[in-house]
């Protein structure tokens, strides 16, 4: 071979040269082998990190629908007006050239220039220092973008001031990304922009999805609030160079089912040139849309509950209404007042608006998160305990007259006198229930024994969370057996408990579960808010419901006869003249209810306000719906029936209108009553 011929030459000098050549080539070859084969990976990585930028593309968030498929939360396109730096390289350069100081110089030189038909005077560029050139470059870039802002602003009829600091930061850190000069264009602005778009190089619209709640405040507490959060979810790539705005639910079902709604973010890879400007874009992984969440809520009933509260108590009232199907545990409405518009959070809330919301504590879901003394509605539990203990509902009890308030009854526990709003005279169970006689229920409660009341309350799972909205629910308060059998538990405490005051607090959702159990024959249910998830691509495909209806948590184990006694007394409370809940009555619809008024006391044991309650179900024959209304008021002179009755009335009217003669909503399959573990 050629090389070896040269190495074997008998000319020593040439042989030496050949040797040097071979050594040289071998050196290069080894070097190249090392760089290109052995350590190639290192350089490839280096090349990728300098030339590729990854962008996190959020997935389309699943919708939230009511039980009839009406959209409660969806995504709306949002258009941001953006400047794309990668289209402006030429414009930057032109502006730079224009800004650059020049001077006219006369060239007196000889040489080929003279030959080459060039004139003897020409423009000379002034020599600039590095810092001056940098400053000029920034000035040029700023001028170009500022000019665009001004021109586009004029087209749209708005002023678009360009903040130099934001511009410099965006250009330095996110050069490959669109630079937003105006967020959230409205339709008119969109139209104007599109009209003038032809000559706008480097300006374009960026489409983003923003969460939208078409019914605004409706079911706001159930749906919840969203917050911008571009971070990677668990199981995603954690490193991205850039992230497009993404949102995360912080309260309500938006937060609880965030994982399912959220979907999986995708990834784009952008090739950038040495100036950091975008060259091309490749989709590495498509985002996977989240699943749609179908709630058990019924939009009509939810709206009826909210507007009833608004109508009778105004927008700032502290109130809540819960409508539940008594057999399935499906929550049809969960209203809380005061309320807010979740759109404000999704679109970025203003400080003033947020302050207003905070002052009203409007973010609180009063149906689940606040403790309220139940007052007289707790007498249903006392009644069941006493009846089970053997109380004869027809036995007559005489209520003695309150010496200080003629026409009203009272009862003495030791030396303490407890007032009764019911007038003195003979009472059987039903009359006592209708008039909510404190004396009757305290007497019979004490007779049945506090342990039996506690045991009955435990079967209703008072003092425990219902599991409806995990982490957004309070357990309420209910004394334990150990507590009531301790020596420091007095008869007075039991008396207080019997009228739903003292060491007891409940939430409206707990009361809905309690009333449902009485109505459905003794099954204490897990309330349900979610019907099922459905995939966004194939909403019609049969999807196994992950949340089965009618999950029974516990059985009351109360005789049907006693339950019937209580139910009949509740019916009388609403339907009979003189009942405390007559305001809720709807002609032709047998509603059973119990009113309640609990005092709110300040630290000095002075009464400062009341919790008004109306806990009900209907119809009497074959119960279907439980409706619980709670209003917290600091105004004197109300009662559960007066304050909450009309609200319940309006809700029942909507239910009747909705269900017609059948008195039944589109029902989910109710499973046989088997004790099951909680659904979550």
């Amino acid at each position, binding site marked *: 071979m*050629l090389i070896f011929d040269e190495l074997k030459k008998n000319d020593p000098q*040439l042989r030496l*040269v050949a040797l040097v*050549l071979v050594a040289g080539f071998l050196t290069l070859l080894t070097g190249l082998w090392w760089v*290109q*084969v052995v350590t190639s990976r290192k350089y490839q990585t280096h*090349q990728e990190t300098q030339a590729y930028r990854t962008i996190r593309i959020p997935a389309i968030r699943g919708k939230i629908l009511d039980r009839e498929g009406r959209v409660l939360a969806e995504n709306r396109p949002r258009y941001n007006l953006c400047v794309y730096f990668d289209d402006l390289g030429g414009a930057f350069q032109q502006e730079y050239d224009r800004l650059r100081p020049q001077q006219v110089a006369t060239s007196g030189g000889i*040489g*080929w220039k003279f030959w080459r038909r060039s004139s003897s005077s020409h423009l000379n560029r002034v020599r600039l220092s590095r810092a001056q050139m940098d400053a000029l470059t920034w000035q040029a870039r700023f001028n170009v973008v500022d000019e665009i802002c001004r021109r586009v602003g004029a087209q749209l009829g708005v002023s678009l001031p360009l903040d130099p600091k934001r511009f410099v930061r965006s250009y330095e850190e996110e050069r490959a990304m669109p630079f937003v000069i105006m967020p959230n264009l409205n339709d008119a602005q969109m139209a104007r922009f599109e009209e003038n778009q032809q000559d706008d190089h480097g300006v374009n619209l960026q489409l983003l999805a923003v969460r939208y709640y078409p019914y605004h405040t409706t079911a706001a507490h159930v749906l919840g609030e969203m917050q911008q959060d571009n971070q990677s979810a668990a199981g995603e790539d954690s490193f991205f160079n850039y992230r497009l705005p993404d949102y995360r639910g912080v309260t309500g079902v938006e937060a609880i089912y965030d994982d399912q709604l959220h979907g999986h973010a995708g990834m784009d890879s952008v090739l950038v040139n*040495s100036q950091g400007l975008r060259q091309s874009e490749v989709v590495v992984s498509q985002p996977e849309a989240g699943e749609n969440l179908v709630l058990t809520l019924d939009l009509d009933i939810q709206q009826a509950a909210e507007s009833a509260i608004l109508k009778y108590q105004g927008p700032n009232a502290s109130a809540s209404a819960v409508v539940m199907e008594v057999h399935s545990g499906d929550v049809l409405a969960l209203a809380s007042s005061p309320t807010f518009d979740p759109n404000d959070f999704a679109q970025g809330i203003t400080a003033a608006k947020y302050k207003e919301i905070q002052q009203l504590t409007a973010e609180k879901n009063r149906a689940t998160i606040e403790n309220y003394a139940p007052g007289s509605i707790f007498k249903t539990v006392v009644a069941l305990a006493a009846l089970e203990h053997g109380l004869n509902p027809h036995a007559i009890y005489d209520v003695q007259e309150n010496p200080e308030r003629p026409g009203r009854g009272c009862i003495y526990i030791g030396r303490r006198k407890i007032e009764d709003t019911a007038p003195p005279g003979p009472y059987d169970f039903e009359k006592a229930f209708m008039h909510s006689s404190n004396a009757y229920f305290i007497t019979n409660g004490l007779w049945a024994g506090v342990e039996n009341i506690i045991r009955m309350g435990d079967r209703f799972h008072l003092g425990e969370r219902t599991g409806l909205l995990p982490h957004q629910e309070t357990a309420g308060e209910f004394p334990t057996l150990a507590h009531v059998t301790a020596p420091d538990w007095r008869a007075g405490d039991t008396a207080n408990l019997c009228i739903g005051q003292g060491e007891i607090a409940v939430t409206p959702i707990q009361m809905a579960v309690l009333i449902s159990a009485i109505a459905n024959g003794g099954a204490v249910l897990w309330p349900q808010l979610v019907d099922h998830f459905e995939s966004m691509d194939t909403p019609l495909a049969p999807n196994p419901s992950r949340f089965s209806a009618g999950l029974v948590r516990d059985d009351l184990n109360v005789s049907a006869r006693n339950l019937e006694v209580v139910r009949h007394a509740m019916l009388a409370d609403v339907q009979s003249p003189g009942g405390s809940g007559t305001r809720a009555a709807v002609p032709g619809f047998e509603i059973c209810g119990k009113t309640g008024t609990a005092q709110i006391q300040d630290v000095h044991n002075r009464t400062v306000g009341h919790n008004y309650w109306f806990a009900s179900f209907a119809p009497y024959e074959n119960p279907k719906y439980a409706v619980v209304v709670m209003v917290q008021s600091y105004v004197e002179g109300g009662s559960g029936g007066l304050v909450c009755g009309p609200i319940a009335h309006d809700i029942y009217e909507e239910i009747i209108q909705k269900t017609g003669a059948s008195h039944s909503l589109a029902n989910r399959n109710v499973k046989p009553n088997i004790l099951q573990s909680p659904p979550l």
Partner: protein
Amino acid sequence: MYEMHLNDHPARVDRLLLAALGGLLVMGTLFVYSATLAGGSAAIPWYDDIWVRQVFWYLIGLGSAAMICIVDYHVLARWSLVAYGLMILCLVAVLIPHIGQTHGWGARRWIDLPFFQFQPSEFAKLGFILAAAHFLSRPADELSQPWVFWKGIALMLLPFGLILKEPDLGSALVLIPTGVVMMLVAGTPKRYLIKLGLIVGLLGILVLADVLFAPRGLQIKMQDYQRQRLLVYFGIDFANKNATPEERAKAQRLRADKSYQVTQALISVGSGGLFGKGWCKGNQTALGYLPAGAAHNDFIFSVIAEEEGFVGSLVVLTLYAVILFSGLRIAGQARDRLGKLVAVGVVTLIFSHVFVNIGMNIRIVPVTGIPLPLLSYGGSSVLCSLIALGLMQNVYIHRRGY
């Protein structure tokens, strides 16, 4: 090709050499095209495209080489002193402002002709080889006389100094191995060469030490960028020992700036891997990481290495190896010492370029702005390389004087 030695009817041209040459020219065209793809705009007419110009220079160069082959190199050698003189004149002329042009690079290397930016240092290399071959082809006993040796050194140092003055360190430096190898092959006594080697080596070390470590006041006058290239190569901080942190940070930024080209060239070469990214698919040039002005010039090899990988590098090295070893064979077959010296001179010159240029891409040699013969874009370089090969071919054609 082995049989060539025994062939009764010697070939007029060396076919293997020609094939390798053809391969290099094709590669040169392809990759100058690829390297200038990004910067190309539709505004310039097709004949102004860089790769078209390159082809044009290839054709001119091949024509010149063919013409050179017609005249016996003995005749050319007789005119070599004239050529040498003209070349010295050009090198002096280029140093005069208004005649020599800097083209914004800070070094005065070009003379603008109406159609061509003439780079005298390239042609000086040719003139030097011819003149040195002519000078050293004198009888062997004359070579052992000191005055001949020193005259030879002077012959080399004159263009060396002038090119250094431009300044063009790389072009100046390649004259030294060329001259030394030619002296060696001519039969200059060993003692002279060893002495020369010692002196050059010592001087080199002294200069390097001075540049790298001496305090500001004692440093040899040198262009800033040259000093910085050396500092980058030897991985030495730009900042002084007692610099403030700000100064140090500034020096570090400067260093990153200055080593940018080398770093990017290395990334290009390394990221090519075994098989490369494919022709015209290299990112480094397309995205401008490898500066557009340098990619088709001094850094053409990194473009090839990125797009064709180690395999491509191997092909390039093989093609050069074929040309250079053919050159050595031609030197061995030459009719006389003159022919042998011309061939060896050309071989050494081209090899020095190839080694330094490729070596700089993989950081085994500091950055010096010298082109890769035949592949790099540039009229002067292409023309001179082809003429040099023509000279070599000339020696081959006229290897038998009867």
